[in-house]
């Protein structure tokens, strides 16, 4: 019995010595985001917001839902079925909500909004300097607004998810008007708190001109379909004019514009940055716009009618490739075959290609052409054209608005934009003229579709489609095709109501 007692004592002491002192997780290896203290903390939390801009703009897929536009078509073959759905208007009553790539911008921009919301929320308890906090909040809200605006333009009204909310997934869609209102509030805050363009060395970060440009874009959109509040035209003009009057931005010579070395020039208002130092990811725009024979993916190229209508001149030369590179891939390198190029009409896809991204392409990295030039989100020429259109639409066309339009036209002709030239200058311009000019100026840049639906001219544009286009039209578009179906999986996992039933304007 004595022995037994000893043993029990031994057990007890073993338990005491080796027992886990507590059952808590050691979380010392996990960084906490709850306390943003220094400027460094703020930038670290801001970085992922920009990252989502980069990710979402990385390829052509942000344009998937806008392939109905007359400046875009795709390959009649391969895996381009999702693009053909939109190019041929095979949607509008909920069908094809379950195709690939449809949700690309949906995912990318919602994630941007989440990152921005978390940052803005974190700033409320941050002990960082107030001046820094205001700028950072301005940046986060500016990008959040741009992301929201992009989504609302494509999908229509969306749930309102802003900082300070704890969404559960049961939220329902607001109205388009309500979405415009919180986008406007964000941009007004950003405009007031962001530094002037050129004020920081960080070329990729947003300035007050980005907020003003986005406001001009928002107001112009607000004035058109679907809300059609034409009083917003004047506001669009005001904001565009403020950007012009800053005097910071200017137009580059058109043959210089798309060069690698002219990235982040004064023409660029906002662009997504890509760096070789990130590895070899880059952006996919050169591959998306190149045919397979040029070591691309044949994703997007101009429709024939659009190309035919495009005025000849320096801008057309800078915008399109008409001699298609004939390349192969061997021994880990892209090689040029003989002949080195093939005229577009006999080429693999029987279309010209866009040159805006291939001008700066890098064909030394891997099996496909790739890009490291920043992707333009807003360029100064767009501001000039928004100004001209908003003035025309609000019935207050004047010399300054004509000058803005003419600067774009002069530059397109290879002339000095600031020197009047009667051979290209116009003395009158309708909204339609300006929208058409904008289509050419910003061809392929994810703008044309929104101009066509905003001004309700999509039907006209498509009625002129070249019958030789290979992708068949399933139907002539109507208003039913102005809004994209919401991604099927988003519908499956939430209480959102699919378009068109869930589409509520105001």
């Amino acid at each position, binding site marked *: 019995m004595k022995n*037994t007692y000893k043993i029990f004592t031994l*057990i007890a002491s*073993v338990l005491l010595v*080796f*027992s*886990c002192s507590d*059952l*808590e*997780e050691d979380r010392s290896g*996990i*960084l*906490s*985001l709850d306390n943003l203290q220094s400027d460094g903390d703020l930038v*670290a939390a*801001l*970085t*992922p917001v*920009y*990252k989502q801009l*980069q990710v979402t703009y990385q390829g052509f897929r942000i344009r998937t839902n806008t392939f109905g536009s007359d400046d875009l078509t795709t390959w009649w*073959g391969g*895996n381009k*079925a999702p693009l053909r759905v939109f190019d041929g208007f095979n949607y509008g*009553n*909920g*069908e*094809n*909500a*379950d195709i*690939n*790539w449809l949700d690309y911008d949906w995912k990318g921009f*919602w*994630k941007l*909004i*989440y990152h921005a919301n*978390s940052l803005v929320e974190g700033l409320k308890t941050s002990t960082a300097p107030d001046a820094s906090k205001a700028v950072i909040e301005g940046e986060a809200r500016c990008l959040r607004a741009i992301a929201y605006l992009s989504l609302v333009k494509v999908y229509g009204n969306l*749930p309102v*998810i802003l900082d300070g909310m704890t*969404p559960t*997934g049961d939220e329902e869609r607001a109205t388009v008007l309500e979405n415009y209102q919180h986008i406007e509030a964000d941009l007004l805050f950003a405009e007031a708190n962001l530094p002037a363009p050129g004020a920081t060395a*960080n*070329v*990729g*970060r947003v300035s007050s001109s980005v907020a003003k440009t986005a406001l001009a874009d928002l107001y112009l959109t607000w004035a058109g379909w679907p809300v059609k509040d034409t009083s917003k035209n004047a506001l669009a003009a005001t904001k565009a004019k403020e950007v012009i009057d800053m005097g910071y931005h200017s137009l580059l010579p058109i043959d210089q514009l798309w060069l690698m070395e002219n990235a*982040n020039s004064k023409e660029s208002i906002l662009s997504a*940055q890509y*760096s070789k*130092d*990130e*590895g070899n990811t880059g952006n996919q725009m050169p591959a998306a716009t190149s045919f*397979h024979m040029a070591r691309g993916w*044949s994703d997007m190229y101009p429709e024939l009618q659009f190309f035919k209508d495009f005025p000849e001149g320096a801008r057309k030369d800078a915008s399109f490739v008409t001699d298609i590179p004939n390349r*192969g*891939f061997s021994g*880990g390198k892209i090689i040029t075959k003989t002949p080195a190029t093939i005229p577009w009409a006999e080429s693999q896809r029987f279309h010209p290609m866009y040159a805006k991204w291939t001008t700066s392409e890098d064909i030394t990295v891997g*099996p496909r052409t790739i890009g490291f030039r920043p992707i333009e989100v807003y360029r100064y020429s767009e501001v000039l054209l928004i100004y001209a259109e908003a003035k025309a639409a609000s019935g207050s066309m004047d010399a300054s608005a004509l000058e803005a339009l003419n600067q774009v036209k002069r530059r397109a002709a290879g002339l000095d934009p600031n020197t009047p030239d009667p051979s290209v200058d116009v003395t009158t311009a309708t909204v339609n003229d300006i929208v058409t000019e904008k289509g050419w100026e910003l061809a392929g840049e994810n703008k044309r579709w929104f101009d066509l639906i905003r001004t309700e001219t999509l039907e006209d544009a498509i009625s002129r489609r070249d019958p030789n286009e290979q992708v068949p039209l399933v139907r002539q578009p109507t208003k039913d095709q102005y809004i994209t179906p919401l*991604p099927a999986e*988003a519908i*499956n*996992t939430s209480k959102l109501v699919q378009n068109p039933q869930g589409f509520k304007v105001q």
Partner: protein
Amino acid sequence: MKNLKVKLFLFTISIMCTVTLFAQTSVSGTVLDANGQPIPGATVLESNNQSNGTVTDFDGNFLISVPSDGELNVSFIGFQSQTVEVSGQTNLTISLEESVSALDEVVITGYGSQVKKSDLTGSIASIGSEDFESQPLIRVDQALQARAAGVAVTQTSGAPGAGYKIRIRGANSITGNNNPLYVVDGLVVGNINNINASDISSMEVLKDASATAIYGNRGANGVVLITTKSGSKGKAKIQVDSFFGTSQVVQNIPVMTPAEFAEGVNLRDATPGKPPTIDAARIAELRAGAGVNWQDYFFRTAPFSNIVVSASGGSEDIDYYISANTYKAKATVINQDFNRLNLRANINAQLNDNLKVGINNFVSRSENTGARVNLANGIAWDMNTPPRDENGEYNSIPLVSGVGNGSNMPLLVPENNSVENISDQLITSIYANYNITDNITLNISAGIEKIDFTNSNYQHGITGPNKAVVRDQQALRLQNTNRLTYKNDNPDHAFQADLVHEQQSFEMSFREATASNFFSNSTNFKELSLAGIQNTDSGISNEKLESFLARINYSLYDKYLFTASVRADGSSKFNKDNQWGTFPSGSIAWRISQEDFLKDHPSINSLKARASFGVTGSQAVSPFSTISIPGISAANNYPFTAGVPSIGVAPSTRMANPDLTWETTTQFNIGFDIGLWSSKVLLSVDYYSKKTEDILLNRVLPEFVGPTSITQNAGEVENKGFDISLSTVLYEKDDFSVNSNFNLSANKNKVVKLVDGVDSMVLGNVYYNSTFPVNPTRVEVGQPISTFRGYHFEGVYQTGATDGTPGHAKYRDLNGDNQITSEDIGNIGDGNPDFTWGWNLNFDYKDLNLNMVFEGAQGNEIYNFQRMKMMGLGSAQFHAVHADFLDSWTPDNPSNTIHAGTQAARDANQWLSSQFLEDGSYTSLRSASLTYDLKDVLNDFGIEQLKVFVNAENLFIITDYSGFDPVSTASGNSDVDLGIDFNAFPISRSFSVGFNLTF
């Protein structure tokens, strides 16, 4: 106590009486097993006077006084009892055959407890080494396959050394871990991948709650107890076992000829007024024999070899078992090699009468090398382009660009990239067992498991931008178990009680280095400093568990058996308030055959009814699941100045849930065991019903919420089913015997509830995001966990159809809105079998043995995305290669199963549809071995035994499934994406020869 003394007194008197009444002779002897090893502890009784008896000592010796014309009855657990006539002899050598009757087998029930099978109250499947020794095995889980009712063992991959998926009575949790708990010699281990099957002495699969509840915290998925061999006293035994052979994939998938492929390309790409993609001259060349069937390049006849050398034995106080094993195999898929090496030493020492200590030591290394060809893309690649041109240089891309699919020539990756995955595992456990009194035993054990993974791969510049990734991961598990056992020695009221305290900790850390822009490919991942860009990543996690367990076994008159246990577990994975879970269980068994009315029944020699009920838990979520973890990686960095990216810290992709707690499974089990005709027929039938609640669900959130997932305790899953096992001696006469062991498992899995107000959830998001815009499976209330989603394919519109384009696929309009929209996606099937079965058939004729293992599943469906891809569909696939494409619809070939091959018909086709759903039922001859025992032939050479054998694995698989085989799957270990075939590693058919040599 008083009573006992009286009995002892009477017993002594009666012995004295017998001595005075009969002429006695003193008989000594030795009891040996079939291998000539002494059997200590065997009972030797006088047949006509059961009160006269003794037990053998450590050397198997006994001494007994019996009438000279009497008979002795010798018995020992696990052996057939034998009756020997004394016939005047004074020295007997009695050799006992191992028991055919499984009823006397000892079954290990966990935490040191050993119970005779006849005394079991819970549902436990027991497999001894003799059950699988005639099948050449590499892995432990192979030995379980087809041998235990209620245990579904699936070979999800044909890669050598790849793990099997094991589910015991269905999947309880949905997204949580459903793997059983593996306990090797009392120590919980992370995996059993490297353990050598020939080191196994026995395996017990604990199925019902009364058996598993003692492993409360992780018992819910069932427990596999593995006991490794130990030495037995006597002459040292040296054994060499070896086999070698070759493997091949079971079948290739039929493809078109290259010329037919080219015609298909032209049909699909047809553009009015434009030349065809592949010109007529080339098609003529293809017809003359140019072109490629890619499967010819991907598969090979692959050799493998395995050798095990072991030595075992023991002296009075010490026994030992040591073994070494090396296994080398090439895979049936090119450039995939696997090597495994392991060593084991098990040593036990009886230090004194009361104290025994021991150590089990296991170290192993396994290596997987070679970059694997992507079968999904590779098989569907351009058949017009040979891998090399006339100069022997690679054709890296199709001769005609844009043909086949978007990948590079499939051989570039396996022939140039480097992959090396190394896993080192160390398992060491020690114990001390101390008999404090005759009735009380203390057992203290401690163990360490260390697993290190080193995964290195290098992407060669010829395939794309060069890049190396090296990841080192280290895991350490520590376990300490302290057990106090009380056991009485009253046969009428056998009582045992155990108290256990246990603590475990698990730490994991990894470091990963990614390097790119190497200026040379020559050193691949072995010299990362040569890279222009170098990134690192790291992580660390930890978890702790503390548990208390009490268990009682009580047996009344050896007829009524009771077991009860309660276990309390605390886990660090949950926050303080939710940390502890309590898991009780109880079971009862009635040995009806011990009752008087059945005792001497001519045909029923055993009958037992069992019932059990209990609760087990699961904490199968990753550490840190209650909190949200910020995203820190290159995926959140951004180059503000177009140069070196800034470091970003993103909010968590998972929503925090501080309320997370135990998932619990309540199980009810009822069953009976019956033995007929001297146990020639043994039947066990169990019915069970399991309910899992507060399931640890990884729920997908819609994108606008921000975090894309949350782990919640929500929902309820039900598993109900039968396990039936039937072992019969079909024939036994003279030199010939036939034994059969059949088992059948039927499990019905149903989701009873999900998050409140939600009828269905998308949970298996492996394919969603990457391959499909809508996940091919979902979890829906009222359905099995994984339900296939898709359009209902209803054939092909024929010429003259007014409601659709002729040649286009026709789908069911579920909501009747006259449009095919995503609303028409419905449930089209599921990957759960109605039942699975295994059948082990053993023929013995003289020195020949034939062992066959059949295995099958019935009623499961497979989503054949491999075929979908080969039909030229799916993302990044441009053209068809599958032979079925030849039967595509044309006006002259009004196929109703395959739509037209044109681009328009392809665009109108839905990949997610019942067109690609197939019946996955199968019957296979998993293994067949013929063994010849050369027995005594070689005695003169000092060889005790030599057996030679030939074996075939997967000699046939009978199935309607059109893929490589119905077994391998892309779903791996997942239960939410069950039954998906896409880029799976096909299983193989193999032939081998081997021998077992004993000195």
